[in-house]
C-alpha cells in the first residue's frame, strides 16, 4: 500500500526547518546582541509553526504568548538594562570556538545516527492524518493537566512564585 505523499506538509516543514536552522545559527554567531534576540524570535515562531503542523494547537498559542510575548521581551529589557553597546561587540566569543564546533558536530552526529537507526524513514513512522482525533484539542490538554498531572501543575505554580519572588529580591536596588 502506498503511503500518502503529503506534499504540502512536507514543503511547509522543510521551509520552516531551513528558516529555523539558519536563524539559530545566526543567534549563536552574530556579534550584535539585539540582532541575536530578533533571530531568536524567528526560531521561536518557527517552533510555533511546527506545533501547528503537528496539530498541537494549544501549545502553539502558548509558545507564541509566553516565549515570544514574554521571554523575548524580558531579554530585550535585560539587554537594555545592562547597557549593551549599540552595534557590534568586539569580543562576543571566547577562544574555544574550534572546541565548541567539534563538540556540537560530534553531539549532532551521534544523535542523528541514533535517530536514524531507531526511527527510520519508513511508512510506519509517517504522521497519521486519517484518524478522527488528529487535532489535540485544548480540552484534552486541560483534562490531562487537571486530572493526571495535577501535582506537577501545582508544583509549577509554586516554582513560578518562587522564581518571581527571587527575581524581585535579586534585582532590588538595596
Amino acid at each position, binding site marked *: 500500500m502506498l503511503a500518502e505523499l503529503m506534499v504540502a506538509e*512536507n514543503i511547509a*516543514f522543510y521551509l520552516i526547518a531551513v528558516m*529555523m*536552522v539558519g536563524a*539559530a545559527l545566526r*543567534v*549563536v554567531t552574530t556579534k550584535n*546582541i539585539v540582532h541575536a534576540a530578533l533571530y531568536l524570535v524567528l*526560531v521561536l515562531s518557527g*517552533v510555533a509553526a*511546527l*506545533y501547528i*503542523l503537528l*496539530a*498541537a494547537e*494549544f*501549545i502553539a498559542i502558548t*509558545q507564541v504568548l*509566553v*516565549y515570544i510575548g514574554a*521571554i523575548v521581551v*524580558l*531579554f530585550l*529589557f535585560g*539587554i537594555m*538594562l*545592562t547597557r*549593551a553597546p549599540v552595534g557590534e*561587540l568586539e569580543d*562576543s566569543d571566547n577562544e*574555544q*570556538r574550534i572546541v*565548541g564546533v567539534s*563538540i*556540537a558536530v560530534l*553531539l*549532532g552526529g551521534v*544523535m*542523528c545516527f541514533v*535517530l536514524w537507526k531507531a*526511527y527510520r524513514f519508513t511508512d510506519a*513512522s*509517517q*504522521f497519521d492524518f486519517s*484518524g478522527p*482525533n488528529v487535532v*489535540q484539542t485544548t480540552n484534552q*490538554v486541560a483534562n*490531562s*493537566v487537571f486530572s493526571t*498531572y495535577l501535582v506537577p501543575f501545582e508544583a*509549577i505554580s509554586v*516554582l*513560578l512564585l*518562587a*522564581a*518571581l519572588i527571587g*527575581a524581585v529580591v*535579586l*534585582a532590588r536596588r538595596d
Partner: protein
Amino acid sequence: MYLNQFLMLAAAIFCIGVYGVLVRRNGIMVLMSVELILNAVNINLVAFGAFRHDITGQVFALFVIAIAAAEVGVGLALVMMLYRNSRSIDVDDIDLMKG
C-alpha cells in the same frame, strides 16, 4: 511527514544551542542559547505526543515552557546584579573564586 524529520531538526537546534552556551561570552547570549536547547526539547516532546496520539507530550512541553520562563526571569536578574557589581556581563570575568 516522518517522525525522524522532527527529531533530527530538534537535534540540530540542540547542538547549535550547545555551541552557543560553550562559545558565547555575554551572559545574555548564553541564556539565549539555553532557550534554543529548551525549544529543541519541546519540539521532541510535542512530536512524540502527536505521532503517538498521546496528550502527555503537550502537557510536558507546557511544563517545560513554564520552567523556562522562571529560569529566564531569575537568570536575567542574576545578570543584572552582575552588571551592577562589576559593570560587565562577560562570563569570563567571573573568576573571584579562582585559586
